[in-house]
Each structure stands twice: as C-alpha cells, then as structure tokens.
C-alpha cells in the first residue's frame, strides 16, 4: 500500500504539491490526469525518493520513504518507475539493459538474470530484439524495453510518468497495450497520463491534479461522467 499524507513540495518559491493526501491499495490502478505543472509527475518521483519532500509523509508498505533511516536503494527495488524519456542505456544491448539491475543490485547469477530478462522482454513483445542496441529501435520499442527493465526487478508497484508523451502518435498504442496487460495482471500501478481514453478504460480510480492540489478523485465513470470540480470540467472540455 502506498500512503501519501499531506505532502508538500516546492521548487524555489513555486509550491508544486500543496498538501496531497492519497492512498493506493495493492492491486489498484490509479491514473492521475491534469495540466502540465499540476504537480502530478513530481508526486511520482517523490514516491520513490528521487525527489525530497518539504513536509508530510509517504509510506510504502509502512516504510517512510523520506526517513533518514530508510535504505532508498532497497526500497526502490520494489517500486518500478518508467519515465517519459525512456532512458535506455545506450552502451548495452536490450538484453543487457534489462539484466543489469537484477545482476548488480539483486546479485542474481548471470543465467538467472538472463532468463528473467528474456521472460520480461517476451512479455512486452521484444523477444526478437534481445541483442539489438536500443538506439536501433523505435521510441515505442525503447519504452517497452524500459518497462521490461523495471519489471525485471519484480517490483510490487509500478509508476508510469507520461510514458507515451514523447512518442509518435502511431507508437502510443503499443505502449498503452503493454500497460493494459500489466493492469489486467493485477499490478499495482500509478499512471500519470494525458491519454483520457486509456485512463477511463484501465483505472480503478482517476485523480485530477490542478495547481498542486488533488482537486477530485473518483472511479472513472464518475469522474469523466459527472465531474464536480469546476477546473476538471474545464480540463475535460478542453481535452475532448
């Protein structure tokens, strides 16, 4: 379970998170929508401790992420994150990209890490790209590789930060299909996205962020069907 309690965070004089309270249960798929600068991506990087917070608390399975005593390297093993820019390691093949962390962080034997990597790459439809260098693949393929790389650590939670925003329109579908598959398998996921149709289909709940505040959170039918918040109504009208 991920518990976010009254989290505040500023960059300089700009407060990007103004007291967020949110709980994500195991197996839940939560999507976060909102305009740019609403704080939704920042929240994700706070959850795995890449960004410090100013006040409040984030607990992952009861472990306080920003406590001094928390071993972030250990905690991050159970929180996978995939970014808008897929960040493939260009000097490694697709297989090596996925094997690296299981080998160096989990200390898996080479054969085991390779079996895990092949399994995850097959899962995301890249079984025929094992020995290719990432720069030779399309953005959609690289993004799916990044998903496999995160999955290879057997995380309990997956965070997706606008993973389709940097892709050409015709490549968005393949990545969303991968996310749909993970959701159907019961992975606990938080997806920050601009894909409203996707949010409506896969989410258990959808949260709308506006200017650092979570303005509304509800099951998709309710949030999209009968939005209460005035800013959300404007936002939805503009995205349709």
């Amino acid at each position, binding site marked *: 379970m991920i518990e976010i309690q009254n989290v505040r965070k500023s960059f300089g004089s700009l407060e990007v998170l103004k007291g967020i309270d949110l709980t994500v249960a195991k197996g839940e798929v939560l999507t976060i929508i909102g305009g740019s600068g609403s704080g939704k991506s920042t929240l994700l990087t706070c959850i*795995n401790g*890449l960004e410090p917070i100013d006040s409040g608390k984030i607990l992952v399975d009861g472990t306080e992420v920003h406590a001094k005593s928390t071993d972030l*390297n250990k905690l991050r093993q159970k929180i996978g994150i995939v970014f808008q820019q897929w960040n493939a390691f260009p000097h490694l093949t697709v297989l090596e990209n996925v094997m690296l962390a299981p080998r*160096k*962080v989990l200390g898996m034997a080479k054969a085991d890490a390779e079996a895990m990597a092949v399994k995850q790459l097959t899962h995301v439809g890249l079984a025929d790209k094992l020995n290719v260098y990432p720069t030779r693949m399309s953005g959609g393929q690289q993004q799916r590789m990044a998903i496999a790389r995160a999955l290879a650590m057997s995380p309990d939670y997956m965070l997706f930060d606008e993973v389709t925003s940097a892709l050409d329109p015709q490549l968005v579908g393949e990545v969303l299909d991968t996310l749909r598959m993970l959701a159907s398998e019961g992975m606990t996921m938080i997806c920050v996205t601009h894909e409203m149709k996707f949010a409506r289909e896969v989410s258990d709940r959808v949260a709308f962020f506006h200017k650092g505040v979570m303005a509304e959170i509800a099951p998709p039918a309710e949030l999209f069907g009968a939005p209460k918040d005035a800013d959300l109504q404007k936002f939805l009208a503009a995205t349709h």
Partner: protein
Amino acid sequence: MFNYNFRWNQALNSLPQMLEGALVTIEIALLSMLIGISVAILLTVFRLSGSRILNAVATTWVEIARNTPALFQIYMVHFGLGGFGIHLSPYLSLLIGIAFNNAGYLAENFRGALKAIPETQTRAARSLGMSAGKAFRHVVMPQMLRISFLPMTNQMVWAILMTSLGAVVAMNTDLYGVTSELNARTFRTFELFAIAAVIFYLITKAITLSARLLAARLFRY
C-alpha cells in the same frame, strides 16, 4: 656548402638496439596510460563527490598537469622529490611524470564527456535501486570512456612522444635515450635521429590505426 657524408649502413646497424629502445618507449607509454586513466577516473569521482577537499585535490592536479611543461613535471618527480630524500630511477621518474600529465589531461576530457551524458541516465539507474557508485560504474562510466576514446588515443600518442623528455632525467633505455647514446659514440646524428623519428612515426600511426579498429569492435552502438 654541404659536405656531409651519409653513412646509413652504420646507423642501420644500430637498428636492433633502437628497436629494443622502442619497446621500452611503448612499455612506458602503455603503463603511463593505464595509470593515467585509473587516476583520471578517480579524479573524476573526486569532482563528483561533492566534497570540497576532494574537489580541490582534483582541480589542483588538473591545473598543474595541464598548465606547466611536461618536462618540468618529469624533472620534479626525479630531482624535486630527490630533494626530500625520495630517489626514483630514471625509468620510474619518467613513468610517473608522464602518468601525472596523462591523468590531468584525461580527467579534463572525462569532465567534458560527462556533460554529454544526460542526467536522466543516472536517474534511471538510481530508480532501479542502484547506489550512486553502481550507477556511475555501470551506466555513466562506460559511456564516458566511450565518448573520451578519441581523446584517449591522442593522449596515448602524446605519451609516446613525451618519453623523449626522459632526456632530462638521464633515461637511457628508451628510444630517445638509446639513440642519444649511439649518437654520442658515432656522431651519425642525422641518420640516427632520422631513423628514430621514423620509428616514432610508425609507432604512433600504429596506435591510431589500432585504436580505430578497436573502437569499431568495442562500440557497436
């Protein structure tokens, strides 16, 4: 106006000795590069560490290595340290002097290379649970070395040429030293140094060519 009698045969008879000297030159250059690269990586880590003291050590090293003559650096290792009772052989003085110079130049190259690697690479590595050290070693450093490969080749060539500065510490087993001693005995100055120059040229050409082949093999991405 010009009554020098070339005696190439006499000079060419010394070729085996000169080639032995060339091996010593290559050996010193190679070792100085291995030491130089290792120290440069260490200096780079110092600079990234966030520690002021370590950063100052690295910056001082780089500044001295790059802004004083290599000849002074070698001279200092031999005679400067000698003043403190540390007496090193000409071979070691030359090796350490060149390695010191290499490390300074390479550390600066590495710094430039690091700027070309997006911060998000480290972020991605850290988010997979890697410590800062592991992220540097497995994700950043290999890319840094790849970007610096050509500058490293240049430094290797420079290291070969720098061995001739061993003259100031009476080094007499490398290519320059051997040639110089033969010259003192035979006075075939032009012939001996022309042959030595050709050997130097061939060595450096061989280095640039093999570096190009190695790069094609190593960096397939």
